[in-house]
């Protein structure tokens, strides 16, 4: 409970912290791409302009399978770059690149196949809880923090993880831009 509270209060801090490093380029993520070509992105957004939802939103993208964003009427498995650009107009984002194996990605996708309703989340089973569960299904360990900011900070500490800050209005950092084509849906 305390961890959750800390996570909530840390949402603003997290996004401010990343804002201070908008020119983030240290640790070129291109050098840490899984040689099998499979990876995940956790796309966390802060509070949208004028929104009552102070917690923000979080989604997940899987190599070659697009973005899985529950609760904001986004087609599951849709284009990643289009999603990030669309959200970029609304809020600041922190995007975490996580190296995974093909088997892990398949397990994550199997989890999403069991949850086909793109808006099928609520207060408890929210976007962050759903993303946590998907990552856990793929064997990616998280602390199950049910808030976007907390989850983003959590996965940023995973081995090999790389984080990128995308400010409201852009731009998308070039190093992240280079990674996005690999996450676009191939089907």
């Amino acid at each position: 409970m305390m961890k959750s509270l800390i996570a909530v209060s840390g949402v603003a801090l997290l996004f401010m912290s990343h804002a201070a490093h908008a020119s983030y380029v240290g640790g070129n993520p291109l050098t840490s791409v899984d040689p099998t070509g499979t990876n995940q992105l956790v796309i966390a957004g802060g509070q949208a302009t004028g929104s009552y939802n102070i917690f923000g939103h979080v989604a997940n993208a899987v190599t070659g399978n697009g973005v899985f964003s529950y609760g904001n009427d986004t087609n599951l498995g849709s284009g990643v770059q289009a999603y990030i650009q669309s959200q970029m107009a609304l809020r600041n984002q922190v995007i975490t690149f996580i190296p995974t194996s093909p088997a892990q990605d398949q397990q994550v996708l199997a989890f999403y196949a069991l949850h086909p309703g793109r808006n099928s989340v609520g207060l408890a089973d929210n976007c962050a809880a759903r993303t946590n569960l998907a990552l856990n299904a793929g064997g990616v360990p998280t602390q199950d923090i049910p808030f976007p900011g907390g989850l983003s900070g959590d996965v940023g500490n995973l081995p090999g993880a790389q984080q990128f800050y995308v400010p409201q209005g852009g731009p998308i950092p070039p190093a992240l831009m280079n990674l996005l084509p690999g996450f676009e849906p191939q089907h």
Partner: protein
Amino acid sequence: MATRKGPLIVGGIIVFIPLLYFTSCGVVSSQKAKAFDQLQMGDTEQQVIGIMGKPEDRETSEGSRLAKYGVAACAAPCAQRLWYPNGMSLAGEAWMVELDASGHVIHTAHVTSP
């Protein structure tokens, strides 16, 4: 005696206010969800308003995007969106009805994580 009642009253308020909030939020959500379920593709704007009431916000494909709802912009075939937010929801729950250029419903969504 008065000193014993004080903590009870404060405790009661501490319990009652969140209880009132969650009950109110749940009632608003339930009422809107019930009306929303009656909508059908092809309904006219007047029918939508007859079922859901007047929208709190309108968004058009030509006007500015309403960032607070967190969804993608209204683009063709969407010509207009009617928004019905649950003002009691901390998570920003809202119901969205999209109309085409002829004013008929082409898409509806219950947005739960804007």
